[in-house]
């Protein structure tokens, strides 16, 4: 069975009861409630439920049977529109400057979807609740409590376009409607005012219209004035031209020719002056052009010349610097080569000297060893042969042998050996004495001192002998040049200032800067 969508009877209705005939009949009626409507089911004077978007099955045989069996029920269905609806009305009031102000107020209401049952407080006992009913109920309160009190606070000329005033009215209307309909199931959503022209605005409009009209009249007056002025000037010109024509008619032919010649002359003069001016301008321009070209050319040539001069100067400095570096490098290389050569020569010389010394020492050791072996062998042989001879003969033979050896030595050696020194000490003494060429008395004195030291056991080695000899020589002689034998370091001399030994070739002591005697 198709259902019938239940709506309100007209657009001005907000809520209405479904007629009782809908519940009667043999056949069951199916009624649908759309989602923008609410249906309140009232059974036996009690609200059973509120439905939004529902179907009802009403009447029919089954309902009848139920009523027969269980007794009849008083069922009513109230349908209310949940869509917002707008109502309008006129209000009037006095502004604070005493001008009557009229306005159309539009208020948007809505049945409260949260509490639709409260709408029953507005419903008449029978019939429907219309939009004008709602408005008629609210308007008296709004007129007195909102609009008039609000309008009395502003001037008439300041009302139009005053959004603050709109907001205030809306807020006041909300409060007032809330007070009125808060428990009656009606909400207010918006309020707007459309102001009619008041006297102040009307006067302002008239004033502005009058000003525009006055401006238009002024403009027309000015136009008319200029037109009259032009007519006047044209008339004067025409009159003057006519006078000139009449004057021209009265002049003679000669005067006319003179006039023409004068005009031609002035024309020719003007033309020639123009040509000359053009030529002068052209000449000036050419001069300026040449000036600019030459200046640019000179400037460029000058910059290039400066650049070239500076480049040449930089290249010259660079070349000079490179030459200096090359010279220093070459000098350093030569010096290093010389140093290396000197060093290698010195090393070779030292090595050779050491080699020769070693050979000499080895030869001396070999000779001493052979001599000792021979003497031992000879003494053993003599001992074996002359074992039986007398002790006196043995001593004589030994004395004879010693004398034979001493016969091969120098007198100094003999003297030294006689004094009890070792053969090495005696050799050193002889060698140094020969080199320094000291006289016999000093030699003997030295020898005595050496003998004395030797007997005291304080000198036994060759080094001690050399040291003693050098000390003795320094004490007896003035500072002298010492020349070392062999191929060792260069000869040195003693600096009298710092007593170090710089090479004899030094003109100044390299250790203290003192000027040496040989300098």
């Amino acid at each position, binding site marked *: 069975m198709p259902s019938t969508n239940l709506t309100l009877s007209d657009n001005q209705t907000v809520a209405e009861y479904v007629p009782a005939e809908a519940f009667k009949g043999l056949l069951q009626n199916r009624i649908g409630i759309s989602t923008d409507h609410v249906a309140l089911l009232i059974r036996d004077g009690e609200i059973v439920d509120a439905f939004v978007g529902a179907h009802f099955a009403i009447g029919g045989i089954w309902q009848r049977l139920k009523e027969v069996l269980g007794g009849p029920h008083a069922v009513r269905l109230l349908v209310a529109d949940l869509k917002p609806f707008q109502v309008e009305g006129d209000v009037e009031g006095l502004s604070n400057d005493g001008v009557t102000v009229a306005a159309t107020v539009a208020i948007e209401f809505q049945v409260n979807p949260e509490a639709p049952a409260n709408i029953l407080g507005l419903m008449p006992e029978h019939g429907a609740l219309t939009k004008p009913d709602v408005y008629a109920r609210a308007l008296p309160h709004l007129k007195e409590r909102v609009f008039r009190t609000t309008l009395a606070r502003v001037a008439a000329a300041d009302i139009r376009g005053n959004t603050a005033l709109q907001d205030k009215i809306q807020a006041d209307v909300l409060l007032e409607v809330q007070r009125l309909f808060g428990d009656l199931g009606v909400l207010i959503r918006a309020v707007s005012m459309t102001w009619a022209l008041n006297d102040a605005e009307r006067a302002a409009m008239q004033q502005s219209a009058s000003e525009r009209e006055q401006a238009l009249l002024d403009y027309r007056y000015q136009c008319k004035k200029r037109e009259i002025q032009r007519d006047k000037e044209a008339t004067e010109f025409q009159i003057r031209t006519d006078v000139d024509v009449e004057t021209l008619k009265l002049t003679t032919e000669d005067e006319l020719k003179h006039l023409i010649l004068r005009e031609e002359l002035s024309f020719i003069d003007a033309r020639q002056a123009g040509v000359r001016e*053009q030529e002068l*301008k*052209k000449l000036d*321009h050419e001069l300026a*052009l040449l000036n*600019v*070209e030459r200046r*640019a050319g000179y400037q*460029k040539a000058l*910059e290039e010349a*400066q*650049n070239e001069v*500076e*480049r040449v100067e*930089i290249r010259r*400095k*660079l070349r000079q*610097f490179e030459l200096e570096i090359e010279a220093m490098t070459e000098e350093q290389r030569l*010096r290093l080569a010389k*140093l290396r050569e000197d060093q290698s020569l010195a090393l070779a010389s030292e090595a050779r000297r050491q080699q020769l010394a070693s050979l000499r020492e080895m030869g001396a050791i070999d000779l001493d060893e052979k001599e000792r072996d021979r003497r031992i062998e000879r003494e053993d042989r003599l001992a074996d042969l002359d074992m039986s001879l007398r002790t006196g003969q043995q001593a004589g033979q030994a004395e004879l042998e010693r004398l034979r050896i001493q016969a091969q030595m120098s007198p100094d050696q003999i003297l030294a050996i006689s004094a009890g020194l070792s053969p090495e000490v005696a050799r050193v003494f002889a060698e140094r004495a020969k080199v320094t060429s000291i006289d016999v008395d000093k030699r003997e004195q030295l020898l005595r001192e050496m003998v004395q030291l030797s007997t005291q056991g304080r000198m036994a080695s060759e080094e001690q002998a050399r040291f003693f000899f050098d000390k003795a020589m320094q004490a007896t002689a003035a500072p002298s040049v010492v020349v070392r034998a062999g191929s060792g370091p260069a000869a040195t001399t003693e600096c009298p200032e710092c007593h170090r030994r*710089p*090479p004899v*070739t*030094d*003109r*100044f*002591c*390299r*250790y*203290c*800067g003192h*000027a040496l005697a040989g300098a």
Partner: protein
Amino acid sequence: MGGSDDYRSCCRTAAADDPGAIFCPGCGQALFRCAAADCRRLVAPLGHCTACVSLGLSLEKSAVVKARLGECLRVPFALRNNASVRPLSIRSVLRDGTGLPQEAVPITWEQLDAERTRAFTVATGPFVNSGINSLRLTIVATAAFDKVEETYAFSGDLAIEVEGADPTQVVQNFNLSGADFGTAGMIVANPRASGTDRSRQADALGARADVALERAERFEVERGYRGYDRLAARIPRNVEFVYVGFPAGDKPPDGPWLQGPVLRCGRNSRTHDARPNTEPNDLCLRIYDPPSGELDREASAVISRRVCDFVLQNDRLYVRSAGGSGLELNGERLDAGNARVVNDGDAVTVQGGHGKALSFETGFRVSSGLVTQVRFTKTS
């Protein structure tokens, strides 16, 4: 001034032949040597050791040294430490030049080891003058020797060719009369207005180019790296030191310091001995009894064997505490290892025992921007 040019050939030969020579055996001139024990090359009195401190500045091959008016350049450089042993610490690099203010070049590295090359880039501001513009780099480097640390500044100039906005373009306005052209219009004749742009890459050098570096002595003094800014003077190595009031056996001979830029001071005597005095001093600091002039042994015993060193460094005189205690400069105590610059008129005090102290003052004689004499005058 920058090297061994202050010496004659005989001096250079003698110094090379004998590293221990202090005077030239040929002319008697004092030979001042590098402070590094492993170098000992000749050094001019106001110069630096060219073997230990040798910087080489060069332009990278991709460098562009041509610009136009208003352009900026970023010039890549390579800095090389030519020394074979000694590393250098590059403290700063400054750049200035024609129309360019002096600004520090940001460098992310500091150490420049021996025989090593490191790169940096110099940005130049917009050039405002056409022609040859100068770009000057000033490099401040520090070299540490055995006992001293010397700071030197070197500067090198680079020529940058700056062209005009368009060097070959001549813009002229010809106001041609209407009689010639029919219309009196303005025509701009600009024969080379286009087609003259060239690539910056084409201006690159293509090969590394060396930039000559010179010692910037004036810069060193003005910036306080070397010498005395207040006196506008520097102390050379050959400055004469005079010791007034010290006993004859306690002081070195008057004159320059020949053994090196350091004067050792302390209680120990000046005589080297293998056992009791292995570290002799140059200036012996002992306290004597004023009336009798005899050595106050008890008061002197409190003084350290080695109190301080006077060091010629950065063309200035420093006093460096060597340890112990009781060294004061102008009343301010110097802890071990601390060093202070010694100025003209400064008072050095060494505290002894029994409340006694040894004090002496310094005095400089300045002539023509050089300190020619430093006097140590004993006051107590």
